[in-house]
């Protein structure tokens, strides 16, 4: 049988490592949404003394690239410190898997983002984020790269759905090039709120759709 994936991708897809959920994890990250077709959750248990990832598990609602990348990422991150794990790149994960079809890049990036989100969650909860970065347009833009445009399977920044970002004394206003009655308007809005409201200096987020 022939498949569009490497042997290693297929192996991790068929027998994913570290699958499941950690109850009361030290850190947790959730990326993607059912609307865009891929979703991954990463759970961490971290040694508070050494900051080494002692246990890591994932759950995936996704395609082969997504499952295989999440699986290999958990193997790569286990036993590493948070700092080391943070630096695991999508490129390294892909190389470790023996390559992935280019068209499937976004499905696998999500797994890497899931790991980073879980690490960030741990750091925020444990007061490890030393410098509080001021929310700028750049920061918002970076976070919005994690909000998918379900119509394209790519994020809302790359697909130019975001037309304007305004930040004024803790209030963030994001203009989206979609009518408010569009079938994905509420899903996108919800996702944006989740990503931006958690910023420390943001008090209010307004998502404005074009009429």
């Amino acid at each position, binding site marked *: 049988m022939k498949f569009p994936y490497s042997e290693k991708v297929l192996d991790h897809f*068929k027998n994913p490592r570290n699958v499941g959920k950690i109850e009361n994890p030290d850190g947790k990250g959730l990326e993607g949404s*059912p609307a865009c*077709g891929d*979703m991954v959750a990463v759970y961490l248990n971290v040694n508070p003394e050494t900051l080494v990832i002692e246990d890591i598990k994932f*759950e995936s*609602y*996704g*395609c082969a690239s997504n499952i295989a990348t999440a699986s290999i990422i958990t193997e790569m991150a286990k036993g590493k410190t948070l700092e080391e794990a943070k630096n695991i790149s999508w490129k390294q994960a892909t190389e470790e898997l023996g390559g992935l079809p280019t068209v499937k890049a976004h499905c696998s990036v999500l797994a890497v983002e899931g790991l980073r989100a879980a690490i960030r969650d741990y750091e925020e909860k444990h007061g490890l984020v030393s410098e509080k970065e001021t929310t700028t347009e750049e920061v918002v833009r970076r976070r919005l790269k994690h909000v998918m445009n*379900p119509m394209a399977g*790519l994020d809302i920044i790359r697909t130019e759905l975001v037309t304007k970002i305004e930040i004024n004394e803790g209030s963030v206003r994001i203009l989206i090039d979609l009518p408010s009655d569009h079938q994905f308007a509420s899903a996108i809005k919800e996702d944006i709120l989740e990503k931006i409201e958690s910023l420390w200096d943001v008090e209010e987020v307004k998502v404005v759709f074009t009429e």
Partner: protein
Amino acid sequence: MEDKTAYFDNSASTRLDERVLDAMKPYYFDTYAVATSEFAYSMGIDAKEALEKARSTIADSLNASPGEIVFTSGSTESSNMAIKGVTSALKKKGNHLIVSKIEDFPVLNTAKALEKQGFEVDFIEVDDRGRLNTDQLAETITDETVLVSIQHANQEIGTLQDLESISGICREKGVLLHTDATHSFTRVPIDVQKIPVDLITIASHTIHGPRGVGGLYIRKDTPLNKWMDGGFQEFNLRAGLENIPGAVGFAKAVELVTEEENRQIKALRDHLIERISSEITNVILNGSKEHRSPHNANITFHYVEGESLTLHLDMRGFAVSTGSACFSRSLEASHVILGIGGDHERAHGSLRFTFSRYNTLEETDAIVDAIKEIVAQLREISPLYEKK
């Protein structure tokens, strides 16, 4: 089961029937002349006769006249020929075209291409089962409308349109009707004497005939400009040397489809739907239950992603298709599932099973057993499943 794929993707293509190949062979090795040589030598006459006999057989299956069938290279060409040919011929009458939102790509993308050239196109909605609202169709037709193109059976969810009502409305309003019958031809009969449809796209590859051959039924006196220039073949409507072995094979394939076979295919399909619906939770049958082509089942398995499901099935020797975006190179989810009001999650978890004469009860049971296991396994690792 391990060394042989159980194939449930017969709307994509079917296995060629050996009897079809046997019928075609002489036209590759013995009678290989082209039909246009009929006045030059006897092999040309034989070739011409074979071509016309094939045309007759296909015309009979629609209760049409042989002069109303043009052979093409397949359904994509047929639909292009119908839509571009009619809109071009009736340019002076108007520039409005109506198609449904869930048409297959040959119709949808031809309509979009015409729209770019300045044509007015209405892509009309269907209900949650994929059926067109005929009142809405009637309201959308204007004095400018020159053609309505509504498929017979949908390529993904198998929903059958009410061609009788649709053609009645078009006839009443004086507008031509084209129907893409690629996924219903011979499975759900159309009698052009009873249903006043003007153009019908038909194909060979969906009924165990050869690929690269199809046809277009063109009701007598339908205005149509040729859109491919060259020789004078096919009533001067379609230039290019005739694919005689293809036409002969197509006709043989049409002859081989029987009512009994359609009943058997439907019984297998119903067995699959019945077992999945009763043995797996959180599933939906997409499309209409009663107005449905007999060989199609399209089912969403919630909380799992279609590409993962199809890949696992492939590893176990089953071939199916999915509406998941991850399955397609364009990363776009099925426009049909979205068109019937489904969300992306529903499209992502949908599987299309299409049956043919070669499917068996044994492999139908085997695929259901495999799906049960794989769906349970994928739901186990899905972050969505337990939350709901």
